[in-house]
């Protein structure tokens, strides 16, 4: 398996850029191209990037079919209130899924699709499993979960029509120093709301580990859904205490006010984050090692600790002017 042409949709996102950076170091990757509405967040040496809106379908089709990829890694998923509001996130995600996955279906060389899905796909209705595995029914109860379900069904539909394999990685909430995450943003507020009566556990995933898993899934040709989560779990109040934030206990009805207040202060809380803090979000990621050969390196508590360690502002120190002059 060498010289594969790999297309990364959503290369402009932090996760997409990480995936591209990892793919550049893989010996099985021949040519690497990316497509997104925003430019990549990292310096990429080998990758070719195309800046195009997912709604510009004819251009997307031209770019994708001209590249004729063997593997498509579809990371073009906009989490609600991460970079854009819920309505725009839904529109961009569906537009990207339709145009990019549809265009990939027109490529004769296409062998395999990896899609970025989310743990929210399982839903958190009453009496739903505490820690669902991949065989659990998908019954999303949040907008992001429904978006993930639509992406998976679109990818499965495309794969079934053209006879390629598709692997969906259902990622726990992804956190990283530059990942725009509504959960991470909320937890870093000085005062953080949590559910006093439930205070359920959730797990998260470091961005590097998510990128690792996506690359591994593309390399091995994963052909089924797979949960990816860091080991361990934490509750909302525990995360707040670890981060030296001030906990604001809530019991339910005041969540509506909390959401408005939080939005006012710059950290909008989408419904899937409210669900995480009220109903929990755990998934069974035990099959990852057998399926793709990697497991997340950072535990949930380590990711949460590093979330609070990441500086809000990184001051870039200019080189000393006198030494520059001397040189």
């Amino acid at each position, binding site marked *: 398996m060498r010289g594969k042409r790999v297309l990364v949709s959503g290369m402009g996102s932090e996760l997409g850029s990480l995936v591209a950076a990892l793919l550049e170091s893989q010996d099985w990757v021949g040519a690497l191209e990316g497509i997104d509405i925003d430019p990549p967040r990292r310096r990429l040496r080998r990758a070719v990037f195309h800046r195009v809106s997912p709604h510009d379908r004819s251009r997307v089709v031209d770019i994708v079919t001209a590249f004729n990829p063997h593997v498509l890694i579809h990371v073009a998923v906009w989490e609600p209130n991460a970079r854009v509001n819920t309505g725009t996130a839904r529109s961009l995600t569906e537009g990207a899924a339709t145009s990019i996955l549809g265009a990939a279906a027109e490529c004769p060389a296409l062998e395999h699709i990896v899609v970025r899905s989310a743990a929210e796909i399982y839903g958190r209705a009453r009496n739903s499993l505490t820690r669902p595995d991949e065989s659990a029914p998908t019954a999303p109860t949040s907008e992001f979960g429904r978006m993930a379900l639509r992406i998976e069904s679109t990818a499965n539909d495309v794969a079934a029509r053209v006879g390629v394999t598709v692997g969906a990685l259902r990622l726990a909430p992804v956190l990283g120093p530059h990942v725009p995450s509504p959960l991470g943003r909320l937890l870093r507020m000085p005062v953080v709301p949590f559910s006093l009566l439930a205070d359920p556990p959730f797990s998260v995933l470091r961005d590097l580990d998510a990128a690792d898993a996506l690359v591994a899934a593309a390399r091995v040709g994963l052909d089924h859904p797979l949960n990816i989560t860091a080991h361990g779990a934490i509750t909302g109040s525990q995360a707040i205490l670890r981060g030296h934030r001030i906990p604001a206990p809530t019991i339910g009805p005041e969540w509506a006010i909390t959401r408005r207040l939080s939005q006012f202060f710059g950290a909008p809380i989408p419904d899937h984050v409210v669900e995480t803090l009220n109903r929990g979000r755990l998934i069974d990621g035990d099959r990852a090692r057998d399926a793709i050969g990697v497991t997340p390196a950072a535990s*949930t508590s380590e990711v949460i600790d590093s979330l609070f360690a990441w500086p809000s502002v990184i001051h870039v120190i200019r080189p000393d002017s006198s030494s520059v002059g001397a040189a």
Partner: protein
Amino acid sequence: MAKATAEIIPLERGDARRVPLDSVLRFATEPVEKVLPRPTVDEWGRDQQLINVIMPLAHLRWDVTVGGQQHLPRGGALIIVNTRRFALTPISTALALSQALDRPVRFVGRSDVVPFGPVMRRIGGLLAQPDEIAGALRAGQLVVLGADATSNPRRAGRIDHTLVAAAMREKKPVHIAATMSTMISRQARVEVASVLRPRHKRRGSLAESEIAEQAQRQLQELLNELGGTRTGVPGLGWLGEG
């Protein structure tokens, strides 16, 4: 692999000056960290720190003697216990076994309604659903499942075969454990028996029905052998019978 990733994508470095608000928050919340250092829960939401706090309180109510724990495997297993009506037998058994074995032991039967459901999850509770039990067993956990509650503590109740099916599906051993406690005494006992061996090899769903019935029968025999507990109060020995 993780090391390789870190080498390929080095984390950005800079002069991370602490924002004044962070310092204020850290100072204000410092006392809390002294009381609750680095809190966390496990992958099923069980909170060992909370259990360490409530165990002394549980000891005020129960003084549990555990026997036969050497029969339990290092990996996952389902342990079926008899349950007295209005008693918290699966919970007390799970806590006692957990202390005796020095490993987490979970119990089946938490609700999913606040505030009791979340509290029970924090002490190791699982939903009474086959998939939930199967997931825990697959992850190598010990799971205590209560038989139907009876008014007589020396009577083994019916066992839900759909829940036992989870262990069969995951090819995990099924044990029975007889428990004996009274409403007025602290003395309680948990006796774990060796693994249940099905009498007939079945290919279909009959297997779990038969093993559930066999578990109930053997649990009853174990309870008969165990005898009643003694109250220690002359003339009130009958209370030990329930």
